[in-house]
């Protein structure tokens, strides 16, 4: 996994609550056996018209948001299935961070394991940032992991919480399996003790 320290990027607001993983990556694209090739299908059913052309109404297709790498959305982002194809699709499209008032449990875990930072901010802050992104073309934010803050163009900083271990893993691009395997003697001892 690529290490994440800080990121400055264009912000796109997706003003919906409960964005589910079936919308992030519809099931017809889950049949690949590789980890790649999902970005073009991100939000497929919202992003494309029946004939396959981009849906001009959908926010990601507005030219002013081309190249966006920070997504702002509503509560309970990523609810639904455990498919890791959802963070893969977001990451392969180019997103580095997602800002929302809350995230679904499994989705948030899956993000950390793929170097995408899910940042929980108060609903009022999310509303303010979303408004600013709508109002100001080219609106960019800086997401700082070391400092645990989201910094606005005017210098206002909003801090956020992240678990110490998740932060450590993201900052160092840690191989979690390697981490667990360093305790292999503990695992073996547990198995022996429990006759597993």
């Amino acid at each position, binding site marked *: 996994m690529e290490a994440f320290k800080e990121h400055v990027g264009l912000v796109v607001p997706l*003003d*919906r*609550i*409960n964005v*589910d993983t*079936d*919308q992030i990556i*519809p*099931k*017809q694209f*889950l*049949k*690949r*056996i*590789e*980890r790649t090739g999902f970005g073009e299908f991100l939000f497929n*059913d919202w992003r494309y018209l*029946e004939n396959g052309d981009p849906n001009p109404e959908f926010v990601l297709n507005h030219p002013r948001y081309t190249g966006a790498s920070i997504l702002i959305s*509503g*509560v*309970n982002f990523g*609810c*639904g*299935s*455990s*498919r*890791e194809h959802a*963070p893969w699709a977001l990451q392969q499209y180019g997103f580095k961070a997602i800002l929302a008032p*809350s995230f*679904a*449990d*499994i989705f948030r*875990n*899956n993000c950390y*394991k*793929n170097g995408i930072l899910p940042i929980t901010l108060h609903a009022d802050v999310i509303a303010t940032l979303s408004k600013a992104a709508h109002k100001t073309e080219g609106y960019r934010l800086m997401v700082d992991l070391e400092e645990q803050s989201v910094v606005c163009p005017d210098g206002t900083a909003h801090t956020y919480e992240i*678990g*110490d*271990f998740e932060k450590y893993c993201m900052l160092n691009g840690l*191989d*979690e*399996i390697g*981490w*667990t*395997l360093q*305790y*292999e003697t*503990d*695992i073996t001892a*547990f*198995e022996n003790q*429990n006759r*597993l």
Partner: protein
Amino acid sequence: MKKTMYEKIWDAHLVRSSADEVPILYIDTHLVHEVTSPQAFEGLRLNNRKVRRPDLTFATMDHNVPTTDRSLPIKDLIAAKQMETLAQNCSEFDIPLYDINSPEQGIVHVIGPELGITQPGKTIVCGDSHTSTHGALGALAFGIGTSEIEHVLATQCLLQHKSETFEIRVDGTLPFGVTAKDIILSIIGHIGIDGGNGAVIEYTGSAIRALSIEERMTVCNMSIEAGARAGMIAPDDTTYEYIAGKRFSPKDEAFDAAVEQWKQLPTDDGAKYDRTLILDAAEIAPQVTWGTNPGMVTDVTGQVPDPAEMASTDEKQATEHALAYMDLKPGTPMTDISVDRVFIGSCTNSRISDLRAAAEVVKGRKVADTVNAMVVPGSQAVKRQAEAEGLHDVFRTAGFEWREAGCSMCLGMNPDTLMPGQRCASTSNRNFEGRQGKGGRTHLVSPQMAAATAVTGRFVDIREFSS
């Protein structure tokens, strides 16, 4: 110290726990299917790692298998490739596989309990969010992503934070026509689709105790639809009777010894949950969803809500979006809504008791001319049992299609999908936009309600229909 069942299972599986590290939790059983595993096996190969405990790992094919004649070649070549990849991976890493031709094949959350793999007190994971189903037998079971699948394959452990505990107590007696599906839909309607976010729910109370194991699975199955990490129900005599004699369950003295251990699992009297919600079973009515998530649900006697009456701007917008997608008008009585399709199946409601209940409703009746209806048993074993009881004849005579086992139109990864604009009464677990097919409109209901809807062509109050 008095402990909840979750805390007991958690403590018994801690391999390593220190203040400044994420705890390492041992996993007793890892269930694997074709869709979320290929990249995990590839990861093992790239890092030259082995599967630590193939003997604690079980695989089947369910998500994208066709439910039509299994002797014919699979037309969807990409799906076939995914199944073939699972077979190769299982062969390479020595993992038992119930493939598409196996008499034990079926939806992973149906065959786990059916084979006796699911047992009280176990930690069980699978790359599927409906793994919470297995909690019905008093296991701690939850869905994981592909990176975590790889982690469990390599280490038989997971790095896990401890969850909050949430007791949902349902007391009283369920009224006639009200099912386990209505209990869980009603709970999600109460607490919302993020009402249990990250928590481990334990369902308690006399109404839960009175449920069969298969009904308990329906309740636990949809815990994730309230955002919960897991759902569980304490084991009792009903549980032990269910497990006895299953293929992988302990036998003879070992079984008696296991039961003695399992009896230690229920939450201690006086143990504290982080939260508790109490509901009265007598107040629950048959449920029907009207929107695009399982929390958008109402009594069958209710109406499509008015966005203007929603509490917040976000809710109002979400309701407007949902009604536009579902092509429904505020104030429409649920029983005025007609459907094009009926789907009876999925890990929520495809077990033998579900099929019996649905068959009882359709017996001697016909599917409405305007409706296409199908039954997809949860496993080949369920299918065989149903056929032995003549249920397939009841369904076929009524005009239902009778299919082979799999996830089918719950998520429409195989050819079983809704066409754009089609409306479906479905016994599955998710009514997200496009879930059953792009542009398809899903209403979640119980098997009895789905069966009655197939007959009348529109939603009907099962309490009046059956009386």
